[in-house]
């Protein structure tokens, strides 16, 4: 593995997506700011933080994988002295690092703010699940984009994950899901932990599948 070159490709992807990424960071900061300004504005802040995360989950794979393929830059990248495995590594690590960095900053700020409000601790487990949801859809989209290189299939994946967000409300019917919401301290029920475990499993599986399927691929342009 040519680490220096993989790193260079990652930095290149960050650099080429710097403007949209900065805008997402700004949206995250504004959302956190809203949390401090009263109850109604606080709810708007929560929602806008979630929207920023959803947007981020779509943005990075779209810019660095789908567009690169669509606009014919892939041949340029693949003509560099890299192997297909190094290409995959650069895409996964580059996307993951950019996403995780902004995701952790926004989620950290939002959950930190909630935790600092006395008596609001019960919201945190649900907050973690809500924060992991765009992470899951990001990994699914990234996997589909890298493996299929298809704009259409990426859009379909985006559509499916977006629709999936609306099933969020069904979770409230699960026993042990919403009971702790009003509690002053976080309550990690079995239901909550199972959901979080499932989310993490999907993330790991999507990334592992990406590497596996890429290693079997024979056409890169």
């Amino acid at each position, binding site marked *: 593995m*040519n680490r220096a*070159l993989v790193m*260079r490709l990652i930095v*290149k992807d960050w650099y*080429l997506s710097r403007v949209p990424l900065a805008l997402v960071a700004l949206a995250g900061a504004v959302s956190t700011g809203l949390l401090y300004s009263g109850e109604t504005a606080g709810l708007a802040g929560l929602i806008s933080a979630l929207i920023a995360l959803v947007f981020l989950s779509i943005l990075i794979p779209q810019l660095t994988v789908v567009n690169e393929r669509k*606009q*014919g*830059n892939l*041949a*340029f990248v*693949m*003509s*560099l*002295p*890299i*192997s*297909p495995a*190094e290409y995959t590594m650069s895409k996964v690590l580059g996307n993951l690092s950019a996403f995780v960095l902004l995701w952790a900053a926004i989620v950290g700020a939002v959950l930190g703010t909630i935790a600092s409000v006395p008596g609001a601790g019960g919201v945190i487990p649900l907050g973690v699940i809500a924060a992991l949801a765009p992470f899951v859809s990001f990994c699914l989209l990234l996997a589909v984009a890298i493996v299929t290189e298809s704009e259409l299939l990426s859009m379909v994946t985006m559509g499916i994950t977006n629709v999936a967000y609306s099933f969020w409300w069904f979770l409230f019917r699960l026993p042990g899901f919403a009971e702790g919401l009003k509690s002053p301290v976080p309550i990690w029920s079995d239901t909550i932990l199972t959901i979080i475990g499932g989310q993490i499993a999907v993330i790991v599986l999507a990334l592992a599948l990406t590497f596996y399927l890429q290693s079997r691929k*024979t*056409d*890169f*342009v």
Partner: protein
Amino acid sequence: MNEFAVQLTGVGKDYRFFSLNDVRLEVPVGQIMGFIGPNGAGKSTTIRILMGLVHQDRGEVRVLGHSMPKKQAAAKRDIGFASEDMRLYGSSTLDWHMRFVRSVYPSWDESYAQTLLKRFDLRREQRITGMSHGQQVKAGLLLALARRPRLLILDEPTTGLDPVARHEVIRELTAVMQDDHRSILFSSHNTHDIEQISDQITFIDRGRIIDCRDKESFLDRWRRIRVELPGDVDVPALPGIIGVLQTGRLAVATTNAFDVSLPRAYEAAGIRVHAVENMTLEEIFVTNVHYSREGVAV
């Protein structure tokens, strides 16, 4: 040191509506190979295979001594690649691309890059989106050439260029060959460019190599012989003649194995030879494709 920069043996690749079969292609070190074929003949697929971008289903591919696609990272260190469907990053400047490529390849020659900027009439600070198609092609070639790679693989490098730009590109490619350790493989529909600068020529059609030899023997072996028949008779079949067009007492015979004995044989048969004409590479190519599609052994 291998005597071939590129060596494909029995290479094949199957797609739903197209297959590449038994491709044999050898580019000797220190030479330019012109790769000619109609649209959809398999030129780009072959080039992608030897870049490792597409993996062959069968056959062996060696580039600069490295087995492909397995050792592609090592091989590509010494390959300069440019193709018609390759695009640079639109939102970035040529300067950014130059710095990026320079950071990847230690062989980057900045003063040569400067010279190329002038010769290709390109501006460093210009963004790729603001460039015309021709300028983008030249920018891609600049990035490939300025690294002084041992092997240049160029898919349609002169397509879409104006005559001045084409001339500059041709000039740079022939300048590369002053170093006899360097080699070039380039594909084109423009047989004129290929005729001018290639040492070796390969014709491909419908996924198969239909002819391959050095350029001088190509041009030497193909001739048109204009004859006048003594009366109402057919032109006799002679070995090496692949086609005859006869109207009345005049006929034009095409050969791909010319020898002075051919016109003599006609004369001996009482047929007067009016002229023996050279053919351009384009005429040779078109005739070759025509006869190979008709099933004539060319």
